C-alpha cells in the first residue's frame, strides 16, 4: 500500500487523500447529539402496562390513556380495597339478612368518583390543567372507567347475593352506559359539552319511553329486562369510540 505523507502540501494535491478527507467530513456531519438522544430515549422508555396500551388504542389518545392510568381511584391498591369491601359485603349479607353489598356499592362508586379528578386528589393537577388536553375529557374518561369498574364488581357480587342484582341493574349498569354514550358522543363531535348533552338527552328519552310503556317512572332502573339493553348499548358506544378514532386522520382535538 502506498505511503501518503501527512503534510498539507501533499493532501492538497493527492486525489486519494482528498477522498479520505471528504469521508471524514461526512462522518463529522452526523448529528451525534440527535443520535444519542434517540438511543437514550429508547433505553429509558419503559414498556407501558397492557391496560394503558389498550386504553390508548381505545381512546385514540396516548395522553388520555396515561391520564386514565394516573387516576388515583383506579390504582391497584384502591381496586383491591374496593374488591375486599365488596367481598365482605357479599359474605355478611346472607348471615345478617341485611343487603350490605347493595348498601356498600353506591358508597364505593361515590368515593371512586370523588377521588378520580381534581385539585387535592391528583398530585399533578396544577400542571395538567394548563396543558392542551381537555380536563373535561380526562374527567369523562376517568368517570367511565370508575363506573365500569364498580359495575363489574356489582355484577360479580350479583352472582353470590341477589341483594346486589337490583342495584347493579338499576344503577351501576345504566351509569356505565350513559358514561360510555357521553364519551362516544364527545369523541365523534370533538366536544365534551356535546357529549354530555347527548348523554343527558338519551337518558331522558329512555326514562320517558320506559315510563310511557309500563306507566311506571321507576321501570328504567328496576326492570331486569333492560340489563341486556344496557350491556349491548355500552358495547355499541365503545365500538363507536373506536370507529370515530380510526376514521379520523388527525390527532384528537378536544374542546
Amino acid at each position, binding site marked *: 500500500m502506498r505511503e501518503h505523507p501527512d503534510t498539507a502540501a501533499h493532501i492538497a494535491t493527492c486525489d486519494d487523500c482528498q477522498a479520505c478527507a471528504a469521508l471524514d467530513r461526512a462522518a463529522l456531519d452526523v448529528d451525534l447529539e440527535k443520535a444519542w*438522544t434517540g438511543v*437514550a430515549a429508547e433505553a*429509558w*422508555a419503559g414498556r407501558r402496562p397492557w391496560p394503558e396500551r389498550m386504553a390508548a388504542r381505545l381512546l385514540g389518545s396516548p395522553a388520555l390513556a396515561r391520564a386514565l392510568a394516573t387516576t388515583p381511584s383506579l390504582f391497584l391498591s384502591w381496586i383491591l380495597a374496593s374488591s375486599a369491601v365488596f367481598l365482605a359485603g357479599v359474605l355478611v349479607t346472607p348471615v345478617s339478612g341485611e343487603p350490605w353489598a347493595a348498601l356498600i356499592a353506591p358508597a364505593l362508586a361515590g368515593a371512586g368518583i370523588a377521588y378520580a379528578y381534581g385539585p387535592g386528589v391528583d398530585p*399533578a393537577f396544577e400542571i395538567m390543567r*394548563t396543558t*392542551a388536553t381537555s380536563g373535561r375529557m380526562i374527567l369523562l374518561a376517568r368517570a367511565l372507567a370508575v363506573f365500569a369498574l364498580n359495575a363489574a364488581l356489582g355484577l360479580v357480587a350479583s352472582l353470590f347475593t341477589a341483594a346486589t342484582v337490583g342495584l347493579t341493574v338499576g344503577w351501576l349498569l345504566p351509569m356505565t352506559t350513559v358514561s360510555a354514550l357521553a364519551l362516544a358522543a364527545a369523541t365523534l363531535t370533538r366536544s365534551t359539552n356535546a357529549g354530555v348533552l347527548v348523554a343527558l338527552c338519551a337518558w331522558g328519552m329512555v326514562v320517558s319511553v320506559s315510563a310511557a310503556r309500563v306507566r311506571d317512572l321507576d321501570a328504567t332502573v328496576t326492570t331486569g329486562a333492560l340489563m341486556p339493553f344496557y350491556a349491548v348499548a355500552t358495547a355499541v358506544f365503545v365500538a363507536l369510540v373506536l370507529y370515530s378514532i380510526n376514521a379520523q386522520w388527525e390527532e384528537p382535538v378536544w*374542546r
Partner: protein
Amino acid sequence: MEMNVRAAEVTRRFGRTEVLKNVNLSVGRGVFGLLGPNGAGKTTLLRTLATAIEPSTGSLSLLGFDPKDPGERRAFRRRLGYLPQTLGYYPNFTVFEFVEYFALLKEVPNKDVKPAVARAIERVGLGDRAKSKMKTLSGGMIRRVGIAQAIVNEPELLLLDEPTAGLDPEQRVLFRSLIRDFGERDTVVVSTHLVEDVGAACTEVALMDGGGIVFRGTPEDLKARGEGHAIGDSPLERGYGAVLAGARS
C-alpha cells in the same frame, strides 16, 4: 419588539381578598424576572398567565392568543411551559415516564415524544436518573424534573415559579444558562425572591408588592435605585430594598 405577554388591568380576587390589583404588563422575548416578597402576588400572576386560573377582571393576550376563547386557549397551551411553585408528582413514575406524561398531555406529536423527553431530561442534567422512580429523588432533582416537563414541548412562553428553590449552586448556574438559552429565542418569565438569580439571568425585571407592580426596568436600573440605600448585601438587594421602602412609604 413583539410582545408575547400582554396583561391589561388584570385583577384577581379570592373571596374578598384582592391578590392582583390592576396589573398591566407587556413582556417580549428574553428572560423576565418577577421579584417580590412573599404574598406580593407573583405566584397568582404566574398562575393567571399559565391559564391555571382566570382573571377576575381585565384582559390577557398570550403569544397572540386570547385565552378566553377555548380554541385559542388550547393553541396557547400547546406552546406553554409551566413550572408551578409546588410540583406534584406520581411517586411510582420514573423520571422518563413523568416527563413523557406531560409531553403527551401537551400534544407533542407521537413520533417526537420519546426524543423530546430524552432531550429535556439531558438538558436538566438528569440523564443518569432517567429510569429512577420519582420517590427516590432528592428535592433538587424533583425541581429539575419539573423544569424538564416545562421545557419538553420547546415552549414559546416558559413560566417558572421559584425554579431555583432547592437547587445547589452548581445546578443553579446550569439552570441560569438554560433559561438564558431559551430567552434568546422565546419568552421566559421567572418568579423568584432570590435577587442573585435576577442579576445573573434576567434581561428585565419587575418588582411586585401588595398585588401590583411597583418597579419595572433592567437589573442595572434596579441596582441604580439602591444607591445610597443602606440595607442589603449587594447592589441589587439594596435596589430591591429601596424600591420596596419607596412603595410602602
